[in-house]
């Protein structure tokens, strides 16, 4: 390889890396209040500053961290914390499954690195970048993914540090309403995934049970609500044989909004749903 070629390869890598960082920037900004909350709440629960930062640096999973902190505060044991963590993190199995075709042929250090950095946000940008007619099999760019993943990791940890510093000087940071950032982010992530009636059933069941459990202060509320929601969604899909008539269903059964029907049907056909694309990836692998 000549010197100019090697320079141009390096430039391409840098460009991809920076493009990935840029793509994840909006989500990184949106996660700042949430990171501040993770840092300050950890202090409030009784962790030291180092432990608080270590949660973000080593675990790197916002929702699992915040839920675990709430459980530590309530005096719940490590076994329950780990089971809850397993449930919250189980969606990553699916993300990994979907990205398996791209990442599994890479060298170990890439697999470990991208595996560690695989979050909702990285998964979102890695797929957005290659949407359209050609799904993610094509032109998966490891440097793009690394740039996105690392940027998000650094942003999350800086936000946590801010929360730790602020939490030491400002009391009751938790009462500033920072937790709404979690709700807003999750709403923005969940709503676009509701592409078929069974997912709506899943969300409604999960929401209702989570609220009921919260009102009655039932500690295992998250587990009960999430597993019931998943089972209800899957049950509904099986019962109505949804997958075989998904486009018809989205036209006729979509009664929660008039203007949405056409867009809804469009989105079903335009983006294949996660389970299908995963199934497709799986077939390719075997």
């Amino acid at each position: 390889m000549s010197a100019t070629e090697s320079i141009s390869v390096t430039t391409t890598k840098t460009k991809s890396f920076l493009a990935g960082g840029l793509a994840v920037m909006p989500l990184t900004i949106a996660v700042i209040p949430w990171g501040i909350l993770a840092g300050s709440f950890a202090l409030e629960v009784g962790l030291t500053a180092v432990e608080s930062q270590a949660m973000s640096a080593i675990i790197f999973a916002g929702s699992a961290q915040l839920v675990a902190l709430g459980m530590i505060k309530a005096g719940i044991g490590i076994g329950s914390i780990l089971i809850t963590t397993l449930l919250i993190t189980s969606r990553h199995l699916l993300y990994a499954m979907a990205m398996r075709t791209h990442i599994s042929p890479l060298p170990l250090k890439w697999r470990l690195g991208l595996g560690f950095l695989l979050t909702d946000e990285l998964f979102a940008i890695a797929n957005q970048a290659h949407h359209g007619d050609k799904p993610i099999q094509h032109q998966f760019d490891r440097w793009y993914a690394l740039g996105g993943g690392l940027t998000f990791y650094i942003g999350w940890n800086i936000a946590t540090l801010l929360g730790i510093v602020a939490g030491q000087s400002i009391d009751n940071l938790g009462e500033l309403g920072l937790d709404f950032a979690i709700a807003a982010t999750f709403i923005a992530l969940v709503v676009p995934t509701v592409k078929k009636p069974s997912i709506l059933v899943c969300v409604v069941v999960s929401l209702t049970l989570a609220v009921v459990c919260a009102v009655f202060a039932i500690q295992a509320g998250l587990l009960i609500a999430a597993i019931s929601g998943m089972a209800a969604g899957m049950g509904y899909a099986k019962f109505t044989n949804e997958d075989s008539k998904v486009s018809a269903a989205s036209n006729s059964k979509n009664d929660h909004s008039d203007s949405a029907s056409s867009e809804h049907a469009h989105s079903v056909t335009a983006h294949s749903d996660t389970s299908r694309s995963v199934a497709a990836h799986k077939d390719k692998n075997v």
Partner: protein
Amino acid sequence: MTWLIILSMAAVVFVSRHLLLEPKLPIRLSKNTLTFLSYSAPAVLTAILAPIVFVPEGQLAISVHNPYLTCALVATVLAYVTRNTLLTTVLSMGLFFILY
């Protein structure tokens, strides 16, 4: 004890992310398992956000005076119409901090 929790949680999270990226592992999740998992993200994320929105002070608060609820409704509409994560998050949080 805190460190044990942190490290074991980190292990659980990392394994869930990395396991299926391993080429040597002949893992084949059944179709049913994959279908079940496809509902995991909406179910888990909803189960985390719902109590924040509906039960902000430990009591059910379905009222226009609950800024969590009103702003969550705004966020839902924004997300539905725009399908834009950043716009939804920033606008609804901006509104929230005005109302809160």
